[in-house]
């Protein structure tokens, strides 16, 4: 069993007797230090997609499937190609890797998950370093550095960063929660 907060893109869980692969996992802080997870699932038996929103401490039955270390190679039409050390290529659709697209860049190490021999999803590294390509100057009234502001990554995805982070700086991000970790020199 895993709690919702531990689940990541690429994990497979059983809900209502159906195996569901998590295509996207979004973590958000709710009130009073609670948090919620929003998942986008694909049913491995029927191929249908669904969504679910859960408290982070909700327990799920997870299935351990075969995985392989790969790195992202290139985009080919609607497919994304990943390669292992033996140069075997694995193609996944945009939908399969939706939760990873915001961090995807060439040679990024990932883990491909297989179901009945077929690649079904990709899990990104726990931490990635990305450049901030745009963020607004600090807000007036905040002299403490505690206020967060949005910062855009090369993929277009926005992550909340402290007010002192500037354009061009590199930041480390926790891909499990999509949260800023630190500035990288």
């Amino acid at each position, binding site marked *: 069993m895993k709690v919702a907060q531990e689940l990541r893109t690429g994990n497979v869980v059983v*809900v209502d007797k159906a195996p569901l692969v998590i295509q996207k996992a979004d973590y*958000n802080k709710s009130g009073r230090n609670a948090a*919620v997870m929003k998942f986008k699932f694909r049913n491995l038996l029927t191929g249908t997609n669904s969504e679910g929103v859960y408290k982070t401490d909700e327990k799920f039955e997870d299935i351990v499937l075969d995985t392989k270390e790969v790195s992202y190679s290139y985009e080919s039409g609607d497919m994304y190609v990943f390669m292992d050390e033996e140069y075997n290529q694995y193609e996944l659709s945009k939908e399969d890797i939706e939760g990873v697209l915001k961090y995807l860049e060439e040679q990024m190490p990932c883990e491909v998950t297989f179901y009945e021999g077929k690649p079904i999803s990709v899990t990104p590294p726990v931490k990635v370093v990305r450049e901030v390509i745009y963020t607004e100057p600090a807000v007036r*009234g905040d002299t403490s550095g505690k*206020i967060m502001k949005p910062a855009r990554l090369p993929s277009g995805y926005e992550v909340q960063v402290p007010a002192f982070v500037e354009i061009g700086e590199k930041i480390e991000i926790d891909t499990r929660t999509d949260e800023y970790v630190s500035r990288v020199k």
Partner: protein
Amino acid sequence: MNFLRSVDLFCRVIDNFGDVGVCWRLARQLAVEEDLQVRLYLDDLESLYKIVPEPDKSVQLVKWVDDLVYAESADLVIEAFACDLPDQVIEAMKERDRPPVWIDLEYLTAEDWALSCHAIPSVHPSTGLQKTLLFPGFVEESGGLLRENDLIERRDSFQSDVFVQNQWRRTHNLPEFDENCIDLSFFSYKTAPIEAFFDELSEYSRAVRVFYPVLEGFGVEKRGYLTIYRVPFFSQSDYDYLLWTCDGNFVRGEDSFVRAGFAAKPMIWNIYVQENDAHLVKMRAFLDLYRAAFLPNVWEGLAESFYLWNLEGEIKKGVWKILLDNLPVLTQGARLWAEEICSQDALVTKLLEWGKNNNILIKKDKL
């Protein structure tokens, strides 16, 4: 589809009065305005009695104890603020021929992510029941705000009649309306820079009267131009009158914050502090919405007041003077904000519409 006749609402009081305040308000609206049978399960009834000394009988109050006996589930089960339903309740829900509609009423936030998570029926992983998280909010796509049907009519009637306001003030040992004084209601967490705030008000160019509900230590304190009236806690309904009669309101948490918005008076919000300063992200999201109601020349001063009030340890002189100087213009913005949030359906209306539109819950009289 379930016919909606009964509602069970579960609430654990973690701290303060926000949880119980919201849950009582919701329970009462469902019972009185929607004519439903409502049971409110509370683990701490004493907290309710502090803000609702004499709860009317429209809602059945049940003390939520560990060995709670729960024979039959209602048509709609609301778990407030992810309070975790006890096993016997889950079992009773599973035993129904048609499982009840199970709602988790979440915390209020203006953040965009809440809109994307709002009202998505989700299969609960360990029970197989369907559970839906509802997120209250300030915009049309959100779960809305709790608002009684007659709230605005009552507010307008009270605010337009100084005689009635004075009568209410006398009943609560507050001074009568005086056009030479600025009256502020005051309700905040201890993390706010309260002493620095009072110091600055004491040096303001006009008399300022702060009405400060407390649980003990009542009395009147004078500091220069400032007079602080420490008065007993108000009931939930009287607290609205306090917000309506003041020139500005300092509020905290969730329930008083929402009510201050409806009061159409300028407000400063003290948000509940969270780990890793998550509360500041939430405050910024709210300010991004709130600013549309205010003129640019007064907005910066108001936003700065919000930050100062919520950044622990921050002291900056002059911010409160600007706030008081701007009160008349800020009042116009506060009225626009109240109109904006009143232009949308209230939370209960949205909840019932959602049930109907998803074909899972319909009131018998709406067939």
